[in-house]
């Protein structure tokens, strides 16, 4: 149900963009107003969210330790998984963010009633799918810089060359285009067919997937099948980033779909689970060093509490302490 609703929503947005692109008076809206509004929402929203998280203090030092602590000199400590130095934490975070370390641990548990026996097996598919998607996404976003920057930076061209490694057809088939769609379809398939994941999936989970799929598919269609005028696209893009927007006469209907969905994603991102993009950096179980007995972690709102003092305790149990022959502060 959630999947269907979100699918329909994306279809409706696609349809509106398609129709809007046909009406010349709508083009200003789609080409200029929408991207600006979306970008503003994205930047302001994301900064707001991060500052909102940042405004809550980190009262305790609570890293999840995934390796040996630093203790005795002759015991090898796990300087990354249980980092006690800043460098260790930085490396841990880097591996987490760039390679999805934690997801790499993933396993699958099954139960056999006879025995009973619990079976665990390697399960790296989620890791692979997630990594494939995110890296492709990053490369694709960077590749799009060629529309926004003139002259096109060399590293973009170099990246393009690597991406088009297989030199299949013209325009060259880019590996990331295939990978991102395959990865998204895998993630969607997983959500739909794994009963556990299906059970936990919300409308917004499907929405994000359909939205990204819509963007990827419309982009791929534009690149390989229903060609658009790239010169016009670049003019529009540069016009937007130099704050002197122009509305090219015609680019192609698919372009409006692509641009509208991207704007949707930008505006939606800060207000959805997709903010995990920024959140991962702030995760206290990952970005804190396991040095809480070495260095005192200060809680800014630490407040005095009511305790049962020794004096109160001794008073209450005075006679019993005395009878037991234990020392007393006051006889």
């Amino acid at each position, binding site marked *: 149900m959630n999947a269907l609703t979100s699918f329909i929503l994306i279809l409706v947005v696609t349809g509106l963009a398609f129709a809007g692109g046909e009406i010349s008076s709508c083009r200003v809206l789609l080409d200029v107003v929408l991207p600006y509004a979306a970008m503003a929402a994205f930047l302001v929203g994301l900064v707001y969210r991060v500052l909102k*998280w940042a405004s809550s203090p980190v009262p305790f030092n609570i890293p999840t330790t995934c390796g040996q*602590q630093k203790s005795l000199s002759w015991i090898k400590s796990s300087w990354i998984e249980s980092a006690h130095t800043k460098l260790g934490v930085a490396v841990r975070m880097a591996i987490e963010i760039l390679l999805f370390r934690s997801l790499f*641990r993933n396993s699958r548990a099954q139960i056999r009633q006879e025995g009973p026996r619990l079976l665990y097996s390697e399960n790296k598919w989620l890791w692979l799918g997630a990594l494939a998607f995110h890296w492709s996404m990053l490369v694709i976003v960077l590749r799009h810089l060629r529309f926004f920057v003139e002259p096109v930076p060399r590293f973009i061209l170099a990246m393009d060359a690597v991406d088009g490694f297989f030199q299949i057809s013209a325009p060259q088939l880019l590996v990331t285009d295939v990978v991102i769609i395959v990865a998204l379809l895998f993630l969607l398939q997983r959500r739909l067919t794994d009963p556990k*994941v299906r059970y*936990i999936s919300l409308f917004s989970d499907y929405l994000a997937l359909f939205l990204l799929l819509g963007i990827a598919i419309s982009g791929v269609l534009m690149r390989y099948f229903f060609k658009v005028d790239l010169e016009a696209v670049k003019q529009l893009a540069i016009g937007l980033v130099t704050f002197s927007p122009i509305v090219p006469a015609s680019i192609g209907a698919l372009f409006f779909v692509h641009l509208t969905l991207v704007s949707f994603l930008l505006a939606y991102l800060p207000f959805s689970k997709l903010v995990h993009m920024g959140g991962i950096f702030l995760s206290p179980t990952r970005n804190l060093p396991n040095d809480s007995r070495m260095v005192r972690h200060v809680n800014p709102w630490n407040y005095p*509490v009511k305790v049962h003092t*020794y004096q109160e305790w001794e008073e209450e149990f005075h006679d019993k302490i005395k009878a037991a022959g234990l020392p007393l502060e006051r006889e």
Partner: protein
Amino acid sequence: MPGAPPKPEELVQISYDPPRADWRKTRFDFQKGTYCYSAAAKNLRYLDLPNPRDWQPYEADWKLPPNWKEIILKGMKERLEKFRSFRLFMDICVRCGACADKCHFFLGSADPKNMPVLRAELIRSVYRRYFTLAGRIFRGLAGARDLTEDVLKEWFYYFYQCTECRRCSVFCPFGIDTAEITIMVRELLNLVGVNTNWVLEPAANCFRTGNHLGIQPHTFKDSIDFAVDEIEEITGVRVEAPINKKGAEILFIVPSADYFAVPHYYTLLGYLMLFHEIGLDYTFSAYASEGGNFGFFSSHEMMKRLNAKIYAEAKRLGVKWILGGECGHMWRVIHQYMDTLNGPADFLEEPVSPITGTRFANARSTKMVHICEFTSDLIYNRKLKLDPSRNDHWKVTFHDSCNPARGMGLLEEPRYIIRNVANHFYEMPENTIREQTFCCGSGAGLGTDENIDMRLRGGLPRANAAKYVRDKYGVNLLTCICAIDKATLPTALEYWTPGVEVGGIHELVANALVMKGEKERITDVRGEPLQLGKEATVNA
């Protein structure tokens, strides 16, 4: 009290595939054996907690204060502003499902709401409804739901089916820690007087007497004296066990179960024998006679209130530093919270082992050292005479207790000790030890008998791993460094994996330690005849 739990084969008639319905619309029942009873009003009163009254979870009317919803939402807002972890973990979950089959309660019960992600969604949905723009506008579509009494009951049910073991957080790509969320929800529930007796009675006891069991000073003294007598009986050596001794070098803190409960008690004997043998200048405290901290299972504030005694007593007694015994969540509190809550401990000195001269630089701020760090240092520096063959009747495995593993990183020290005091040591499978260790299923204040069904379910993964080494290597002793493990794993193992006993690391040390002037050991510290050890193994 519920009747006898169902047989293992009945209990595992489960499937990990949840139904297709929307979880927000499924209802649940309070089934006997799966929840803990409410906290007695007297305990709430003693601890100055709100809304003391008589009620039970299975009753329809929980007698909540009329403005309970307001209190909860206000409490939520306050905690969102005080804990970055809470706010962040409410926002960034993508529901990838990596955590789903990592929770021992899910693996044992297959209740989909025991998937960590869904457990968190129970409150996340409320967070969205009241604290996010999208949730306020789009409600259900944004995954939001209203806070109702049913939701509150669901919280109570499922957040007291979480042992705060953090296993899920190891697998989460964002490090979302369900323990953090559980702590928050339990704090919220406490605001309206929804709490369990198994948590608050020990907390109240600890507050009053100094320990969870409510042992008063004289009884405490008796118990220690009894242990001293028993050691003399076994070894022929009379050890000393000072209590509240001012000017001692070291204050020694253990979980109070060590004084009375079995098999904890054997570990206590180990401590006493070890300290005597190395001539340690130390003292117990009858006031701070508890290392464990059930306050941790109700709120940060309660944790602080109970924990305060340790530093206060160290200061009063004028010790140089503090040594802590085998305990799980006690060490989470000491390692990650104590210094922050009740520090700085600038009246103490950086811990140095008086025997080996080793400086425990890793505890230079908190000034509290784990007994396993201490003992492994002694062994490494060859300060102990050990005869590991006295543990030959045990085929040993080691269960990493959740908190020392994932909230501290104490993994190698206990293993080093075991390898030096026992000849037969076998590891359980890779993904059930170290940072991936499975909880006993009874931590975080769930280890009570009325909750036995859920405890056994939660204990299944651990017991199953133990079964693997039992069947493969003939393992008959599971050692651990947690008082709750020692209290509850015997039940779980007897149910799922008969033939595997539970013991502490320092119980093995006690057996292996060759003391000056000792008589020939006829029995181990459990009183089991030593020469029959081999036969006993076979019989087990």
